[in-house]
């Protein structure tokens, strides 16, 4: 089978093949990119998105992140009125410190676990020649372009959202931020937790200690802000996903969401999914589009 990006090229000359709007899929026909407005979606998710490993990793990070923030921030801002209020149910500052360290340990394990999952997954994809940059978390120029088009769409200057892969620009940015953030927090946190050992490790320990102090707190504030205002808005507040996007537990994404924000992934997966093809054909037919293989 040819790689996906090749088959995605729409066949010119077709009556409906407005190359931007329609997307040709063998055995289905031309799929309009805003078909998501007409498909059925189960809020719990229709199509697979994350493996069980990723779901577990997200869960671990989710729990440890909240715990770390809930213990770390009041310890750092001990002079503010809310600090003791948060710390009291955790058993006061002493036990909050212990909880903070244990959570950090679990987060590091989760990060390693993730790293291994990704490394093995990528390796096996590369081996099978199935690795597709388009569906990876690696940022490309296309993402910049997607941002531009998406903003134009939001402003009403374009009719459709860009066609995006498995991870759209938002997610790539967020993923990078998490990698950077976790790295910074682990390095700074260890510098603070093991002052004597790290004094031997860093070339300029005095300076490293200062930076670690600043970084650990500043990065924590930044990460918390991004998670609360950005990540939670994305997965909770967006109409259609309110009050909760279940992907983080089910590992599945709704059909509507996938077609809208990850169109290329949908099309790509469609080719190997006869049941989904059948379903899509029925929707297309209902909406009066021409289809192929229409013995449904």
């Amino acid at each position, binding site marked *: 089978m040819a790689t996906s990006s090749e088959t995605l090229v729409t066949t010119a000359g077709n009556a409906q093949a407005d190359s931007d709007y329609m997307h040709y899929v063998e055995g289905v026909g031309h799929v309009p990119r805003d078909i998501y407005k007409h498909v059925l979606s189960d809020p719990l998710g229709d199509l697979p998105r994350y493996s069980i490993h990723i779901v577990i990793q997200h869960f671990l990070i989710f729990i440890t992140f909240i715990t770390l923030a809930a213990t770390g921030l009041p310890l750092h801002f*001990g*002079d503010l009125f809310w600090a003791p209020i948060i710390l009291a149910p955790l058993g006061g*500052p002493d036990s909050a410190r212990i909880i903070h360290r244990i959570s950090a340990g679990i987060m590091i394990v989760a990060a390693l676990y993730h790293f291994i999952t990704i490394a093995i997954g990528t390796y096996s994809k590369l081996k099978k020649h199935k690795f597709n940059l388009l569906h990876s978390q690696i940022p490309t120029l296309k993402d910049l372009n997607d941002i531009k088009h998406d903003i134009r*769409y939001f402003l009403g200057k374009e009719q459709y959202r860009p066609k995006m892969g498995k991870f759209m620009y938002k997610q790539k940015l967020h993923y990078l931020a998490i990698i950077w953030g976790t790295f910074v927090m682990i390095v700074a946190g260890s510098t603070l937790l093991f002052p004597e050992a790290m004094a031997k490790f860093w070339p300029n320990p*005095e300076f490293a200690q200062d930076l670690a102090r*600043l970084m650990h707190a500043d990065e924590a504030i930044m990460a918390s802000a991004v998670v609360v205002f950005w990540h939670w808005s994305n997965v909770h507040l967006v109409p259609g996903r309110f009050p909760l996007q279940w992907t983080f537990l089910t590992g599945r994404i709704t059909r509507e969401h996938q077609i809208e924000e990850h169109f290329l992934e949908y099309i790509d997966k469609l080719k190997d999914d006869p049941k989904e093809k059948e379903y899509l054909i029925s929707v297309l037919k209902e909406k009066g589009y021409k289809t192929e293989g229409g013995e449904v």
Partner: protein
Amino acid sequence: MSLKRAARLYIVGFIFIVLNFYPSKNLFSADVGNCLLCHKYPGLSRIDEQGKMKLLYVNEDIFNISVHLKVKCEGCHTDIKKIPHDPVNKVDCLVECHIVEPSSEQKFSHKDVDNYVKKSVHAALDKYGMPKKFKEDLPTCKNCHDEPLYRPLSFFKQVRPGISEAALGRCRVCHKKEDFIIRFYNHVTTRLHRTRNPINIAEVCARCHDDPLLVERHNLGTRAVFSYGETFHGKAARFLDERVPDCLDCHVNTGESVHQMLSHKDSAAITYRENKYLACSNIECHPGTSQQFASYKVHAEFNLDQSPVQYYFTLFFIILTGGTLLPLMAIIFLDLIRRLFPDAVIPRRR
């Protein structure tokens, strides 16, 4: 300043008694001159020259459990010779009182303390005997000692403040006079541990050492209490942790008087660059610390003048946070608007 604080002392003390923090016991009487005849009335007060109300009430119950309980009122207020009395002078903490120090059998005074202060960085005269610039900024006894902090130790089973009835029971086996027992119990036990929380000590110093003008006048490198609060020590102190070092633990050479603190530029000071690690490696703190470890900042104040790199680093993070979050929020906002009003268009201007 000290008057106002003294008034606060008595008011705070009064509240303590009302809350029945300490049992009110009428154990001793220093009131030979019958001062309390008038001063026992809680309403006794006057408006001073600055227009502030000055409370002249003395709570006898508190006075009687204070360190000075054996000192007669006139022992400190030496200028009062007759009753009713004339306006009084300020008390000199260094007067000799009628108390006799038992080991030397000399009349007692705090002159020794003053000698320590004179040798310390807080001395009003510099090492050539010349008055320091802005010597009015230097602390006197009353600047530092305006809080009644008298926290007897109870370590019969657990370390916790308060008089341990169980321990007193032991004294009663041999000693018969209740006031003797309690007085000496307090006398000794208050000195066996910290009488104040690290944060309380810091507060004593804060009124000068967090005053940016004073810091600048005396060319000090940092607002010391603020910068202490920026470190793990200060943060823990704020949670009333007593295991962390307070100002005295680091600035007082082991075994010397707390009144003899030296400048960190003085090579005899424990805070001197080469000596610092000795303070850190105290057996109760970080035994066996290295010089590198001791180089970590214990007064972490990252301002533009002293630590430009750290300062810009913080700024970078602020900009990074704002710079990522705001555009991201803008995108979310636009996305949301588009979802809520799918057909909205921006009207074109001509």
